[in-house]
């Protein structure tokens, strides 16, 4: 497969653009692999890429129930940031942001990463105190953070209602200038193409229906396209984690599956060149390069596998958006979609060996999945290759709940709906 470059584009144009090849092969499953990754989402594909690039393990298959890009990797609001607070979570998300910054070059695929900045609004002095604490925590971890006052916000986000007459008057904000957005489909396609070019088989329309075992040990997967044996089997299936793991006999995990909706408006001229989040409710909004406003808010609030949302959240996010940007009142909604979030009891993921021999688990992404895609793949690949966690994902153990070592950024307790 050829590299993409300006010369390839020029040569393609001169040839009438008839010479372009699919970005990855339609692989047919072999009887056995070194590693089988269940789930061809962003995290599964990134894991395959870093297994091949970092560890030289190319005898890898990624099996995906649907088609590449059909799951959560294409059902999010594309926001990337590392403005976390806990010493055990900040380095992971910062490592992810650093991978994002070089991702287009690494993959030879334009993922349109745009570090346009992420602004979290504060509406009370107490909220400013909390954000100041978070900014200090970030800076102690070597990450730039900036506090904005109302005048600064007015300059940076002209359409934002910062008047005292606003429904929830704004008193300031925390700003991470390196945060931003990326094109989510391109992330899936870029990782798939890069992994495929190193020899990874990407097998679409191949649903896992069971696991092959020898005693306790997992030795591969049963699929709708036949059995596939593997020395190591890795699971990265987001909202379907409980269902897939039940096939391996793991019935109880610290996970609930919830629907998280995302919305996009009709396209319009550039109006918002930064990601802004609401502090008096839950809303995050940005404008895509195509012109649509992309926004989302809370999970629907009750366990669901429906991949479609309910109306109360539509009202909730629309009212929050208008409280911030009254000028958007006549913008029409174009599309909404829902993704299945694997919400954990502390709002942070699980990346670990086990829980059975030969098995590796990557799940529990809550609201964090998209921004974490590169670091998730990088550390999961490390965990699979070396049979031990990378220092970055060492805190994301499965047994941290039992041990009381939870990673509860906001101190909200074991209720997935609250994170």
């Amino acid at each position: 497969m050829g590299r993409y470059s300006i010369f390839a584009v020029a040569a393609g144009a001169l040839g009438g653009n008839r010479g372009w090849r699919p970005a990855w092969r339609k692989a047919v499953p072999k009887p056995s692999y070194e590693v089988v990754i269940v789930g061809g989402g962003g995290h599964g594909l990134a894991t395959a890429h870093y297994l091949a690039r970092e560890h030289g393990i190319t005898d890898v298959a990624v099996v995906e129930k649907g088609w590449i890009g059909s799951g959560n990797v294409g059902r999010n609001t594309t926001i990337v940031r590392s403005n976390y607070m806990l010493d055990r979570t900040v380095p992971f998300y910062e490592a992810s942001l650093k991978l994002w910054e070089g991702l287009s070059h690494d993959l030879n695929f334009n993922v349109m990463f745009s570090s346009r900045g992420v602004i979290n609004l504060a509406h009370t002095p107490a909220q400013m105190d909390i954000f100041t604490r978070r900014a200090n925590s970030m800076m102690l971890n070597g990450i730039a953070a900036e506090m904005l006052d109302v005048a600064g916000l007015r300059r940076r986000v002209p359409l934002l209602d910062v008047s005292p007459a606003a429904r929830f008057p704004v008193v300031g904000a925390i700003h991470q200038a390196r945060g931003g957005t990326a094109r989510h489909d391109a992330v899936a396609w870029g990782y798939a193409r890069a992994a495929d070019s190193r020899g990874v088989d990407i097998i679409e329309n191949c649903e896992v229906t069971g696991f092959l075992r020898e005693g306790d040990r997992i030795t591969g997967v049963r699929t709708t396209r036949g059995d596939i044996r593997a020395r190591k089997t890795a699971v990265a299936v987001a909202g379907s984690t409980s269902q897939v793991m039940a096939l391996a006999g793991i019935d109880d995990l610290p996970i609930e599956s919830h629907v998280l909706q995302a919305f996009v408006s009709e396209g319009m001229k550039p109006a918002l060149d930064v990601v802004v989040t609401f502090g008096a409710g839950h809303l995050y909004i940005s404008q895509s390069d195509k012109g649509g406003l992309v926004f989302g808010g809370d999970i629907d609030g009750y366990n669901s596998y429906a991949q479609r949302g309910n109306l109360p959240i539509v009202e909730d996010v629309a009212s929050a958006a208008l409280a911030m940007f009254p000028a958007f009142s006549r913008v029409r909604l174009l599309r909404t979609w829902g993704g299945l979030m694997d919400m954990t009891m502390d709002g942070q993921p699980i990346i670990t060996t086990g829980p059975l021999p030969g098995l590796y688990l990557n799940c529990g992404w809550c609201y964090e999945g998209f921004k974490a895609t590169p670091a998730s793949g990088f550390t999961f690949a490390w965990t699979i290759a070396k049979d031990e966690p990378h220092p970055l994902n060492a805190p994301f153990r499965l047994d941290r709940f039992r041990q009381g070592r939870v990673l509860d950024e906001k101190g909200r307790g074991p209720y997935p709906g609250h994170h």
Partner: protein
Amino acid sequence: MRIPCPLCGPRDRREFTYMGADDFLRRPAADAPAEAWDAYLHLRDNPAGATRDLWFHEAGCQAWIVVSRDTVTHEIAGAALAGEGRDAT
């Protein structure tokens, strides 16, 4: 989504607050082993299909109810007061 409150009749989902699976009704004894408390606080069946979970009729009669519900179709099969056993049909 409308939830059939046993006291108020069918009411809009927005009147209710969601708690989680009805496992919360099976609270371990104070001296139960750590594993029992871990399971109670953290571990979930998370079924794709029939489930029973706790809802609080916050903007209505303030009753806790157990709702039998399908997590794939969002269909609601029935509801009963949480204080009157868990036989929601």
